[in-house]
C-alpha cells in the first residue's frame, strides 16, 4: 500500500533536515557554526509538533507491515526528538571548543535520531536491523569524533570492531529464525510461534538458537553482561556529549526495539525465555553496580552505572506484561531524563575545567554550587531516592516484576540498587565534603592575579545552565507527579500488547 506513505513524512523531513544541515554547513563561516545547532533544534521542534498533530491517535501499519505508526511509535518518536534536541543543546559549547567539523556532527546526531525513531516503529526484523545499523553507524563515527585524541580513536576502533561482530551475530540469529519459521514480520512470527508451541515436540532447536543469537546481538547494543565490555572503554574515550547520547539514546532505542520484538513477536514463548532474561538481568545489574565502585573516572563510573540500569530495564523485559511494559517505558523515560541531567552537569564541568575524574570534583559545591546541586540531584535520582524520578521508576518497575512472579529478581534489583547508592553518594561526598584538588587551588590563585581579564572564564555558559535546570526540574517532575506521563505510556503499552 502506498496511499498512506505520507504518515512517514516526519522521517522523510528529518532526513532532509540532516542533509540541509550538511548543506548549510558549507556556506557558514567558521565562527558561526553554532547556528547549525539552532537550526537542528528548531527543525526537531517543528517535526515534533508536526508528528503530534499528524499521528495522534493513528494506528496503521505501512509498507505491507514493515513499519507501524501507533501510539508506541509516536511516544518514542517524540521522546527521541526531544532527546536529540537536548543532546545538541548541551553539546554546543563542547563542540565549539573541542571538536572539528561541527556541521557533520549535528547532522550525524540527526541521522542517529532518525534511526532510533524507526527502531521503535519497525515491526519486521530486517527493517529493525537496518534502522539499528543506521543508528550504530552514526555512533561509530561520533565516538571517534575527537580525531586528535588517541583515546577517542581507540574507543571508536573498539566500538566498531565489537559492533560489527555483534551485528553479524544478530543477523545470523535473524537468518536462523527465518529458517525456522519462514517469516520476519513480528505478527507472523508470533502466529508461527503459537502454532509451534501447540506442538512443542516438533520445534527445531534452530528456533531457540536463533532467538538466543538475536538476544545476544541486541544485548551488545544495550551493553548487557557479558556483552558489556566495550562500554567502559568506549564511554571513556568518546567525546562527552557522545557518551551521553550513547548511554541514553542508544539504550532507550535498543530497548524500544527489544520491547516491541519481545512483546509482539516472542510473547507466545515467554515461558521459555523469561528465566533466561531474568538471569541475564540479575548478573547485569549486580556486575555493573559492583564494578562501578572501583572506578575513578566519572565517565567510566557512569558507564558501569548504565550497565546496572540496563539490568533493571531487562527486568522489565523479563516481567513482560501490561504492567511490565508500562513500567519499563516509564523507566526508560525517567532514566533518560536523569542520565541526561547528570551528563549535562558533567559536560558543563568539563567545559569549565577540562577534567572528568571523580577526584577533580572536590569542592565543586563551593566553586559551582548550582552544578554540584544539579549533579547531586541527578545522582540521587539514579540511586533511587524519593522525590526524584529514580525512586518512582524503580518503584513501579520492581513492583511490576514482583507481581509477575519475579519476586526474587525484585529482591536482587533492590540489593544492587542499594550498592549503587554507595558510589553515587561517593561522588556527592567528593563534591560537598572533600576539599578542592590541588590544580583547582592553583587555578583559583592564578585567576585572582589576572582577575580583570579572566573574570568570566570559570563559568558554564547560560545555555547549558538553562538546559541543566530544565532537566533537573524534569527529574523532580517525574519523581513527584508521573501521572500525566503514565497516561501516555498506558496507551503506548496498549498499542503493543492489545488493550488490557
Amino acid at each position, binding site marked *: 500500500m502506498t496511499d498512506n506513505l505520507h504518515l512517514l513524512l516526519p522521517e522523510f523531513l528529518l532526513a532532509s533536515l540532516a542533509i540541509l544541515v550538511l548543506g548549510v554547513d558549507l556556506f557558514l563561516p567558521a565562527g558561526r557554526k553554532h547556528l547549525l545547532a539552532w537550526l537542528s533544534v528548531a527543525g526537531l521542534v517543528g517535526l515534533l509538533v508536526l508528528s503530534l498533530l499528524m499521528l495522534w491517535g493513528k494506528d496503521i501499519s505501512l509498507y505491507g507491515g514493515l513499519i507501524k505508526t501507533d501510539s508506541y511509535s509516536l511516544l518514542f518518536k517524540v521522546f527521541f526528538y526531544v532527546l536529540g534536541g537536548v543532546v545538541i543543546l548541551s553539546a554546543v559549547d563542547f563542540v565549539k571548543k573541542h571538536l572539528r567539523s561541527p556541521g557533520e556532527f549535528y547532522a550525524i546526531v540527526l541521522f542517529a535520531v532518525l534511526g532510533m525513531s524507526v527502531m521503535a516503529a519497525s515491526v519486521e526484523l530486517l527493517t529493525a536491523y537496518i534502522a539499528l545499523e543506521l543508528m550504530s553507524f552514526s555512533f561509530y563515527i561520533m565516538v571517534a569524533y575527537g580525531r586528535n585524541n588517541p583515546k577517542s580513536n581507540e574507543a571508536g*576502533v*573498539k566500538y566498531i*570492531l*565489537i559492533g560489527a*561482530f*555483534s551485528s553479524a*551475530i544478530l543477523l545470523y540469529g535473524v537468518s536462523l529464525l527465518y529458517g525456522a519459521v519462514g517469516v520476519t514480520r513480528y505478527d507472523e512470527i508470533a502466529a508461527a510461534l503459537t502454532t509451534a508451541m501447540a506442538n*512443542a515436540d516438533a*520445534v527445531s*532447536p534452530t528456533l*531457540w*538458537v536463533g*532467538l*538466543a*543469537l538475536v*538476544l*545476544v546481538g541486541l*544485548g*551488545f547494543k544495550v551493553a548487557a553482561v*557479558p*556483552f558489556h*565490555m*566495550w562500554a*567502559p*572503554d568506549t564511554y571513556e574515550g568518546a567525546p562527552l556529549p557522545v557518551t551521553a547520547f550513547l548511554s541514553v539514546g542508544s539504550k532507550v532505542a535498543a530497548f524500544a526495539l527489544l520491547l516491541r520484538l519481545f512483546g509482539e513477536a516472542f510473547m507466545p514463548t515467554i*515461558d*521459555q*525465555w523469561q*528465566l*533466561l532474561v531474568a538471569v*541475564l538481568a540479575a548478573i547485569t545489574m549486580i*556486575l555493573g553496580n*559492583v*564494578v*562501578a*565502585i*572501583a*572506578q575513578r573516572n566519572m565517565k567510566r563510573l557512569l558507564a558501569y552505572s548504565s550497565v546496572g540500569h540496563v539490568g533493571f530495564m531487562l527486568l522489565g523485559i523479563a516481567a513482560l506484561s501490561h504492567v511490565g511494559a508500562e513500567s519499563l517505558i516509564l523507566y526508560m523515560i525517567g532514566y533518560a531524563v536523569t542520565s541526561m541531567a547528570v551528563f549535562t552537569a558533567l559536560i558543563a564541568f568539563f567545559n569549565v575545567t577540562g577534567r572528568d575524574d571523580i577526584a577533580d570534583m572536590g569542592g565543586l559545591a563551593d566553586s559551582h554550587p548550582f552544578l554540584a546541586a544539579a549533579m547531586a540531584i541527578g545522582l540521587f535520582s539514579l540511586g533511587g531516592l524519593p522525590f526524584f524520578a529514580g525512586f518512582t521508576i524503580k518503584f513501579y518497575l520492581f513492583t511490576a516484576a514482583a507481581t509477575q512472579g519475579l519476586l526474587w529478581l525484585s529482591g536482587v534489583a533492590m540489593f544492587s540498587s542499594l*550498592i549503587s547508592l*554507595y558510589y553515587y553518594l561517593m561522588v556527592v561526598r567528593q563534591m560537598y565534603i572533600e576539599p578542592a584538588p590541588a590544580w583547582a587551588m592553583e587555578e583559583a590563585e592564578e585567576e585572582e592575579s589576572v582577575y580583570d581579564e579572566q573574570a568570566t572564564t570559570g563559568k558554564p555558559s547560560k545555555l547549558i545552565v538553562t538546559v541543566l535546570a530544565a532537566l533537573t526540574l524534569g527529574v523532580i517532575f517525574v519523581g513527584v507527579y508521573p501521572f500525566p506521563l503514565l497516561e501516555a505510556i498506558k496507551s503506548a503499552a496498549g498499542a503493543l500488547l492489545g488493550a488490557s
Partner: protein
Amino acid sequence: MPTMEWAWLIPALCFIAFPIIAIFGRYLPGKGSFLAILAIAAGFVLFLFVAYDRIDQGATGLDVFTREWFQAGSATLTWGIIVDPLTVVMLGLVTFVAMMIQIYSIGYMKGDPRYGWYFALHSLFAASMLALVLADNFLLLYVAWELVGVCSYLLIGFWYEKQSAAEAAKKAFVTTRLADVALLVGILLLFREVGTFSMMETFHQAELLMAGEDSLLSSGTALTSALLLFVGAMGKSAQIPFHVWLPDAMEGPTPVSALIHAATMVVAGVFLVARTFPLFEAAPDALLVVAIVGLATTLLTATMALAATDLKRILAYSTVSHLGLMMLSLGAFGYTAAIFHLMAHGFSKALLFLGAGSVMHGADQTDIRKMGGLAKVMPLTSFTFAIGALSLAGIPIFAGFWSKDEILLAVLEHRHWLFLAFTLLAVFLSALYMARAYFIAFRGELKEENRTAHEAPTSMALPMVLLAVLAAGFGFIALEWGGGFEGIGSFLFFDKAHGFEFNVALAVGSLVLALLAVFLAWSSYLKGKPYLSTLKSLTTPFPALAERGYFFDHVYQWTIDRVILVFSGFLGFFDRVVVNDTGVDGPANSVKRSSFNLRRHVTGRVYNYALVMVLGALGLGVAWWAMVAVG
C-alpha cells in the same frame, strides 16, 4: 460565594509566608516580619468571611470539603477541611491571638539577631495550628499536630545559645513525642477498624455503636482508641503526668509563651478531645478518665502555681491548671463550657503573658519577689494584667467568670459531688494565685532597682489593650442577646442546643470563694496579716511538696539516668559491635573487595571482549535449548 470552602486558604497563606521569610527575609524590609503579619491578618479577614458564611448557611451546620490526594492500594488518602462551629471559633482564636502576638513581637524581639527566622517560625506555627483545627481526617491532623510540636521545639529553643533553653526545648519535644506515639497508635487502630482516616466516617461508626446498631467499631476498640487519643491530648495539653515540660517551656521568648504555650498549641489536646467527642461519647468510661485526669491536673498544678516565684512559671502552672479544668469540663459532658473556657482563657492568658513580657522588657525582672509597686511605673501593663487576672480568678463580668460557671454547672449535673467540691477548691486556688502574683508584682512599694523601669512601646501596648477588651467583655457572648443570638450554647454545642443556664447558688458560691481568695491575698501580701502563713502551716506537707513540683521531675530524671540510659548503653554496645562491625561493615567490605577484583575483567583488549561475547552467546544458546528440552 462559597467562602467556607476557601477556609483552607487561611493556613495556606501562612504556609507560603514561611519559606519566603525564611529564605528571602534577610533581603526584605523588617526582615520579612511584615509578610508574616500580612499573612495572618489576611487569615483573620478570611476567618470573618468564613464565620459569616457559616452563620449564613445555618450556624450549627457542618460542612466537609475534601480532595483526593493519592491512592495507595485500597486506601484512598484525602485532604480536606471541616467547617463547623468548633472550627470557626478556633480559627477566630488562633488568627486573632497570633496576629496580636506577632504585632507585639515587632517591639519585643527588636534587635534580635534571628529576627526574620522568628517570624518565619511564627508563620509556620500559625499554618500548622490552623491546619490542625481544619483537618477533616486523622492523618492530616497528625501531620499538623507534629508540625506544631516542631515549631514549639524550635521556638522554645529559639535562644539556643542558652543551655537551659536548649534543654527545655528538648524536654518539651521528647515529652510530647512520647504522648504522640499513643496518639498515632490510636489513629492507626481506628484506621484498622474503620478502614479510613476520615473523621466523619469514624464518628458515624461511633454513633452507630452508641445506637446499638451494626458498627465497624466494637465498644472495646472505641474505649481503647479514645484513651489512646486522650494520652496524645494529655501530652500536648500538659496534663499530669506529662505536665513537666510546660513550665520549662517558658525559656522561650515571652510572646511565644503567650501564643503557643498558653492560648493555642497547648489547647490542641482539648480541641482534639472536643473534635473526637462522638468517639468519647461512645466510650463513657474514657470520659470518666478524662474527668479524673483533668481534675487531678487542675488541683496539683494550682498548688504549684501558688508556690512558684517566677512570674512566667506562675502563669505556666496556671495554664496547666486551666487546661485541666477544660479537660474536666469535657469529662463532665460540658462540651460548650470547655470550648468557651478555652476561648476565655486563651484571651486572658495571652494578655497576662504579654503583661509579663512587658515587665521583662521594661523592668528586666522575672522573679516576683524582686518586683513590687510596678503599677507606678507601668500603669498600662498593670491595668491590663489586672483585667487578665480578674478574668482568670472568675470575678463577674470578666470573661473567665462566665465560662468557669458553665464548667461548674456541667460538673454538678454529670459527675459525683466530690468532683464539684474539688473543682470549687481549684476555683479558690486559681483566684488566690492570680491575686498573689498581681499584688506582689504590681502593688506595694516600688523597689529601688525598678525605678528606671519603663512602659511598653506602642506596638506592644496595642495588642495588650485589644486583648484586655476581649478578656473583659468576651464572656457576654454567653448571654442571650435576642435578635436571633441566643448565646454561645445555641451554636457551639454537642448533641443539643442550650441557652445560657445560670445556677444562682453555684454562681454565688464560687464568687464568694474567689472573693475570699482575693481578700486573703490582699490582706496577707499587702497588709502583712498572717492568714496565709497559718493556712500554709495547717496544710503541711503540701506547700513543701508543691514547691518541689511533687517530685515529678526527680522521678523522671532518676528513671532516665538509672533505667533508660543503662539499657540504651547496652543496646548501643550491641549495635556497635554486632550489628555494625559484623553485620553491616562485613558485607560492605566484601562487596568493595569484589569490586576491585572484578574490575580487572575489563582488560582493554578487544579480542578478549569478543571471546567473552562468543562464550556468552554459546552459553545462552545452550541454556535456552536445554531449558526447552528439559521443560
